[in-house]
């Protein structure tokens, strides 16, 4: 398994209060789990303890299709972390999910870091498992379809 970014950045772990645990557990199983209100069916992201629409506390996480479109993007050149000192440019994308269009997710766009990045282009998720790392974790990356 190759990784998009060089190793050494802080690794994601579930929040100590448990708020986003189902998301990270889902990624480990190649599933994209997004928060949804059971009362009004509204999608919500990032996760919160209450539904911002109807104020229900009855929230769950539902699996959604790991597909979307590029809503915005950036190509980073200047490393602000020592792990990226020899990285060269890399692309971060903000992806609007197809099944829950009010939800946006941050990830990297796989492929040539100097490619032209088309806003509105369709992308599909790639689950980047870091099984030999401590702690074990999974990143959600994206590639053009």
């Amino acid at each position: 398994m190759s990784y998009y970014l060089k190793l050494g950045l802080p690794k994601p772990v579930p929040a100590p209060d448990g708020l986003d645990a189902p998301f990270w557990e889902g990624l480990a199983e190649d599933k994209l789990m997004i928060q949804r209100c059971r009362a009004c069916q509204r999608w919500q992201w990032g996760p919160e303890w209450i539904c911002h629409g109807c104020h229900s506390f009855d929230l769950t996480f539902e699996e959604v299709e790991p597909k979307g479109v590029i809503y915005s993007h950036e190509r980073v050149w200047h490393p602000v972390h020592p792990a990226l000192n020899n990285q060269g440019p890399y692309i971060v994308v903000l992806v609007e999910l197809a099944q829950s269009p009010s939800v946006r997710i941050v990830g990297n766009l796989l492929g040539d870091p100097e490619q032209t990045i088309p806003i509105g282009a369709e992308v599909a998720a790639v689950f980047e498992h870091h099984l030999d790392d401590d702690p074990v974790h999974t990143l959600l990356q994206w590639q053009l379809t």
Partner: protein
Amino acid sequence: MSGTLRGKVCVAGVAETTYYKRGEAPDAEFKLALEAIVKACENAGISAKEIDGFSSFSNDRSDASRLSAALGIHDMRLANMQWGGGGGGGSGAIANAAAAIATGQAECVVVFRALAQGQFGRFGQGPQRNTISGEFAHTIPYGLMSPAQMFAMKVNRFMYENNVKQDALRAISLASYHHAQNNPRAVMHGRPLDEKKYENSRWIVEPFHLYDCCQENDGAAAMIFVSADRAKEFDHPPCYLLSAVAGSHHRAGAPVHNAPDYATSAFKTLVPRLYDMAKVKAGDIDVLQSYENFTGGVLMSIVEHEFCLPSECNEFFTLENLTNPNGKLPLNTSGGNLAECYMHGLGLNIEAVRQIWRESSNQVDNAEVSMVISGPMVTPVSASIFGSEATL
């Protein structure tokens, strides 16, 4: 409008320490804060013991109670902190100070900000730790961690939606550097910028070249506010607060880049309140200080404050248009955060007052209405308008 701040308070004095490059201040951050406050009182011609309120923002580390003890103040009546990071609270701290004075909670409030990054660490670097949780667990592992990286995402979307060209960002940067060359306080005084130097500078994160990004600095700045009844006690011409507002739009703080209205400087809901309170509109503003964390934020701020339409950016944002004395909208006349000093924007409020006092190093002729836009793209943001005697 009920509860207006218009004309209720005035600026008695302003001051800053020497502005230093990041990490180069010879003094402790708290000492810098004290120095700026004492100098601002001297500028007003009052004793620092007259201060009865402290108002700051961005989690300033110089605690109000320690300041009050250090200055020997007998009756501290206001210890106020505007929530939120970056410079979004600059004018918000002024609004809070003014509200306290206007309602009799306090009589003499200092608004201040102090920064010594050598002592306390930088803004523009990512965290060096093994794990990360919470909102940043969803961004930092993808290499999105610095302010430039957080905000470039918004600016790229805005530029895409409105077909804005890089030249518009460049003009904002050139205007700040241009004005700094006349301002001896500016850290970039004597270090001019031209189109070629801008174009040849490295990318930080597209669309930001190096010169689209603010400096990081050490220093402190302070402003003394009192009731408008006292405006003529001081050596300066009267400078009144005409308006100051803070806030942000619907779910501006939704985590992980999920604000429904995303490609925005976050001022759309503030602008009507700002102009209504001041009883002015964009065309009445003689000179503008607009917080540059990054030039793209200035671009969106100026659009949202109705100086031009989103579709007009490429024509409006030119060096000629943004510089004194001939520009339609003289912008960041001290050099701003890019070229004077990054004091989380409080220097912009001081410069706005100096324009009314006729003390700017890039003085706009007949400046009567002087505006500050504080901290675009964060939440909450804020803005303020100052006016001369003639505007009341």
